[in-house]
Each structure stands twice: as C-alpha cells, then as structure tokens.
C-alpha cells in the first residue's frame, strides 16, 4: 500500500479570485503581514502497489486523465515517505 499526496494549484498566470478574497479578509482581520495568497486542492490516494516509482507514474497518469485540469492547473505528487516530482 502506498500513500500518494497530490497537490494541485493554478498555473501562474491564471487568476485565483479565491486567493484574492482570502488575502483581503486576512488583511481586514489585521494580518497585514500576509502577502500573496494562493489556493489549491489536494487529493490523497492509497494505491495497492509496492513500487514507489510505479505508483508515482500511475498517479501522474491519473492526474493527466482525470484529477487535474491541466489547462489551468499544475500538480505535484508526493509519495508519503517524502519523494517528490513536479509537473
């Protein structure tokens, strides 16, 4: 069993109105030290798989096929013991 963590964020040039709204709210609450705020999603999967490299590959495929809207989002996959891969 391998635990996979996928974090998904907007691409750099894509507007993130939610991040903007949260930043404004934090400022109103007095947190003036807050700069940029970006929001994203995360998905945690368990995979019935023993090989981390293969798990990584499969997770990447799932991201491309279903989990991530690659037109506007990017993702990172982490195998829960710490390995990482960027896309």
């Amino acid at each position: 069993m391998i635990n996979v963590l996928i974090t998904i964020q907007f691409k750099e040039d894509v507007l993130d109105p939610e991040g903007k709204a949260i930043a404004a709210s934090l400022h109103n609450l007095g947190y003036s030290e807050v700069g940029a705020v970006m929001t994203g999603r995360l998905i945690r999967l368990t995979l019935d798989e023993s090989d981390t490299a293969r798990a990584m590959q499969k997770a990447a495929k799932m991201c491309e096929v279903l989990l991530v809207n690659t037109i506007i989002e990017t993702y990172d996959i982490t195998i829960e013991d710490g390995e990482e891969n960027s896309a």
Partner: protein
Amino acid sequence: MPSIAVIRFPGSNCDRDIITGVASITGTKPSAIWYKDTDIARHDLIILPGGFSFGDYLRGGAIAARAPIMDEIQDHVWRGGYVLGICNGFQILTESELLPGALMRNVGLKYVCRDVVIKAHHADDGLLSAFKDGQSFRMPVAHNEGNYYADEETLARLQDKGQIAFTYTAGIGGDKHIDANPNGAIEDIAGIVSENGRVLGMMPHPERNLDPIHGGGGQDGRQLLKNLIEAVAP
C-alpha cells in the same frame, strides 16, 4: 410591527427579495444595512439574506462571518434580539458559531435549485412559537452548500432541546419522483434554531414563494414569514 433590518454584504443577492417579501406582509420596508455600517441596535429582527457573500470564497459565509458587523449581531443576540439567516445567511450563522454545526457541500456535488417540502417543529418560545408541529411548507432551495452536518453529540443536543426547526419531507414532483432531501443534510435538517430559540437558520427561501406570480402556485413562504414575524412581536 417589529422593526426589521436586512444586512447586505458584498455578494448578497436576495436582499431586495426578502425586503420586498417582508414589506408585502408587514406593509413596511425593512431597513437595508450595508455591512460596513454597524448600527443595528434599534431593530428587533435582523435578517441575513441569501446570496454569495464575498463570493462564497473559502467556504459559504466564512468571510462574512468574520466581518465586524457580526460582533454587533452577536451583541444583538445577547440583548435578546432575533436573527433569521436564509441560505447564505444560515451559512454565515454557522460559520460565526451563532448556530452549531456546519453547512457542507451538497452530496450531489452540484448546485441545486428546486422546490422542497419542509415540515416545521413547534417550540414554546422563540421564533418557532407560531408554528404548529408538522405544519408543512413548499418552497425552493438554491444552494451549493446546504448539507447540514453536526457531530453526534451536537445532533443529540439539537434533538433533545428541540432545536431542529425544519426538516425536508416527502418527495415532490408529478409522482413524487424527486427526493425529499436535496443536499444530503443529516437527519433531513433544513433549518435549526439556537438554544434560546431566537436565532434561526434555514436553507429554503420563503421569499421566493409568497407572491401570486411565483411558480409553485402556493404562497407558503408568506405563511412561514408571517409566523416568524408574529413570534417576534405577538
């Protein structure tokens, strides 16, 4: 007649609707209060209308619940004032912890706008005092996050103290082919009141079914609002 005010946040969009609706019952237009103004002291009933306050970013009602005017509303409640939150207003009330529990995303993962039938529960005091037990009302819901959740302990307390104000009941549509519960709310909860009965949150929109032109044909929303207004100033 009680003095009624409606709070408008950026993104509120049922403010005009509830003002018009209440005025058609009481003959007096409730005051509209912009969230940046904080003088609400002279009103008996404060209504938090539906809509998408602050875009519903983060979570429905979350940002509005932290606006300074909510401190005033808290004071108003401590002073024994009444509060009604409809839809987004209900979300604001749970987010600000004036009501227990949380409104989560609909189990269908989609926005849902359709008629529901709700059953009211009577309480001896507070906003539910003019309702008869089991009195039913038909009106629309329209929301993304109406799936009421409370942990077991909270739920038991709500049941115990008679705080469950409205529950979804009976399928609707031609041959009742549409589920009663539109969003997966626990125990079919459509609305709850605070322990003292003075703060009420509900997902359905009474202001959308109170005029002869409204599609449902009935005017159940009018009766529901009348009951609430009567409770505030019998």
